[in-house]
């Protein structure tokens, strides 16, 4: 069974890398977007297991985004992703899912 992971980050290059990394593992399905509106739309139309908040999301946007996403899916796990698709990704996701 695949775990569907939504990544939101403002940097296009990092978002492309994240999309590649998340979809490289058969157990994960990654959906990567750069805007909050896209993220909300994805959350409305897909079953999402985990949200990764990436780079460039300021505190005000983050607060609003968390409120909106948890309003749509109250049990949704939302974590900060650090490092930009680096060696931290696997550990972050494993910790969040376990």
């Amino acid at each position: 069974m695949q775990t569907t992971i939504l990544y939101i980050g403002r940097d296009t290059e990092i978002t492309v890398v994240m999309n590649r990394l998340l979809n490289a593992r058969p157990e994960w399905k990654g959906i990567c977007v750069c805007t909050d509106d896209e993220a909300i739309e994805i959350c409305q139309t897909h079953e999402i297991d985990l949200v990764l908040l990436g780079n460039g999301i300021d505190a005000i946007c983050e607060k609003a985004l968390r409120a909106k996403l948890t309003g749509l899916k109250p049990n949704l796990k939302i974590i900060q992703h650090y490092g930009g698709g680096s060696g931290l990704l696997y550990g972050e996701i494993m910790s969040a899912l376990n």
Partner: protein
Amino acid sequence: MSQFILHKENTRGHANHGWLNAHHSFSFANYYNPERMHFGVLRVLNDDLIDGGMGFGSHPHDNMEIITIPLAGAIAHKDSMGNSAVIKNGEIQVMSAGTGVSHSEFNANAGEQLNLLQIWLFPNKKNVTPRYDQQTLDVAARHNNFQQILSPNADDAGVWIHQDAWFSLGNFDEGFETEYKIKKAGNGVYAFVISGEVTINGQVLSKRDGLGVWDTDSISFKANTAGAEVLLMDIPMELN
């Protein structure tokens, strides 16, 4: 009462990719150990051996303070901020990834193995403007002394980062004893033995062992062998 956690050398994560032989003190890449996720804001301590001419092609980072200390050999660095540099043993490099930066890192010498420590700290503020710096250190100044090589302050010794952290390196004669005072209340210290054998707060540490100590304002230190070399990372224990 101080608390501690001991990470023996042979309990580190290990990945041998041929050109890259890496040891991870904390979970990294495919090495996942829920008991080894971080020590305070210290998230990554990688001990990498990289074959001549080999390295990491361009890849992005964000929101992380990345410190590189070559122990042997030299690393060639290029990044999206326009920096192009070679950092060798006796120098330190720092990169604040902030909103996002791409860089490549290669062994600068075709015929020599590169050994480096790469250390990642969670930053104390997110989405800062990316920055890069490197500095040549006075290696003689760390003989029987914890030489500060990193701090939060631009006008202090060593490089600076976006975190209330202080790093020190020392190279000690056998039998040398001292006390290290923690720079900021609430910080802990992660000691990493680069070479030799030392005793910290009564714990005997060998090459590449790590010891995290917290809930204290100082640590005791003794070098048990000549040429013992230690990196101290004085870091916040609370994640920002």
